[in-house]
């Protein structure tokens, strides 16, 4: 009986949490569409989420591009297909690794920061204070962060694409002796607009997920400093898992058509 009760409690908690998240997302979408829209706060968040994430995204994508080039070179070597390095690096980075790794890095950095900030506001009654001052917390706190992250992530993914391909280029030309002009030419020839845009669409969705998970976990945090810590962890974990799940779904949709 205890075992069944535990299973029942787990599913009840799961559905309660899912329902609360769905309501939260609905309230946020409504807040994003209805005035007032806090453009100044959106601008501040674009700086915090986008600009300050550039170094971590750039470094990640550079080294990933380089590692990918090495793997493809030695993999292709077995079939005398070393020449595919440039094209596969470009495809891999733009379609998958740029947006996904960029998303995961930004999830670690931004989701945690948002959850900690909003969680602290919750436990110190600042969110209650906003409400009593006739300001909707969804409009003032959540919507600007979600809008900013959704705008920033495609830009960060584009930067990741360029730097990741550059990382592959550096390794290919410096370590494996590829001709620089031919490497670039093959990259350009092989890469289609759809490859880049599919990655950017994914990145926009990842941005939405990252900010939403940070805001949601922070907004419902409770229990003082420990609760804020838990919210921060949950934000990063849930954002990362949802990014990977959404990536699979979108890849299926975008490339099966």
């Amino acid at each position: 009986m205890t075992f069944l009760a535990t299973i029942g409690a787990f599913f009840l908690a799961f559905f309660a949490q899912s329902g609360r998240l769905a309501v939260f997302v609905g309230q946020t979408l409504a807040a994003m569409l209805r005035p007032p829209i806090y453009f100044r706060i959106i601008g501040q968040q674009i700086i915090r989420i986008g600009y300050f994430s550039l170094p971590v995204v750039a470094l990640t994508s550079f080294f990933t591009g380089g590692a990918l080039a090495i793997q493809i070179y030695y993999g292709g070597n077995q079939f005398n297909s070393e020449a595919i390095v440039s094209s596969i690096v470009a495809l891999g980075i733009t379609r998958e690794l740029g947006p996904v790794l960029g998303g995961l890095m930004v999830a670690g950095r931004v989701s945690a920061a948002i959850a900690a900030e909003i969680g602290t506001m919750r436990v110190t009654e600042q969110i209650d204070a906003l409400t009593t001052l006739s300001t909707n917390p969804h409009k003032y706190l959540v919507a600007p962060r979600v809008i900013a992250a959704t705008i920033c992530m495609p830009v960060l993914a584009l930067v990741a694409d360029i730097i990741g391909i550059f990382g592959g280029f550096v390794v290919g030309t410096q370590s494996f002796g590829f001709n620089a002009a031919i490497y670039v030419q093959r990259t350009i020839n092989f890469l289609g607009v759809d490859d880049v845009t599919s990655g950017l669409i994914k990145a926009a969705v990842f941005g939405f997920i990252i900010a939403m998970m940070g805001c949601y976990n922070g907004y419902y945090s409770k229990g003082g400093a420990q609760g804020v810590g838990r919210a921060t962890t949950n934000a990063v974990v849930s954002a990362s898992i949802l990014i990977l799940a959404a990536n699979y779904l979108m890849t299926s949709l975008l490339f099966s058509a």
Partner: protein
Amino acid sequence: MTAKIALTNVHKSFGPKDVLRGINLKVETGQSLVVIGGSGSGKSVMLKSILGLLTPDSGSIKIDSCETVGLARHGRADIDHQIGMLFQNGALFDSLPVWKNVAFRAIQNDGMNEADARDLAVDALKRVELGAELLDLSPAALSGGMHKRVGLARAIASKPEIIFFDEPTTGLDPIMTDVINHLIRNCVQELGATTVTITHDMTSVRAISDKTALLYKGEIIWQGTTDELEGSDDPFLNQFINGLAHGPIEVEGQKLASAPSPAEAV
């Protein structure tokens, strides 16, 4: 006098725990009500229910004869505009300087420009005896007492008709407690506001209350004027105001003496 705030049979539970068990309370226009009670007696839940931050399970809460239970947030915008609130720890916004905290409502809701908002903040800070040199400071740079005073300035900046104070002197030294009590009294008199204060500090009760109510286990078990408070022979009230460990009130869930139920005692 008409009741500015009226609570009728308000119940609120969290899971199996009944926190409010049929609260009946009226606050007349211009009156200063202080609700006292031990930790966990339901004071904060009652206050949050009046503010619309929590929804009661049943009962009625009227402000200016307008039923607020079940009203959506946007539906009570007019009511919210006449309310000011001082939170226990100030609840100042960390990301904003002092002047933007104080003039927050005017900036966000009334679209007040920066120069006028700074003037408004200077005026409100002056009322709580703080100088303009604080305007550009971050809340993190303020002491506990200043935090409370800036919070009070924010609560009164829009000249509200109703002001709520959540444990305004908790955590302050005796001198700062006296300063805050005087500021509350002065500000409220200047504005002619109706106030509800929740506290367990009897110094505050004597300094700022017209009427006092004792909340115990989610029920109002005594209410009366400040004069009646001192002369009452209610065992619960006497234990509380004299700070006695032994008596009918259970201390942190531990029954220290044979205690009658609140209903039996009154």
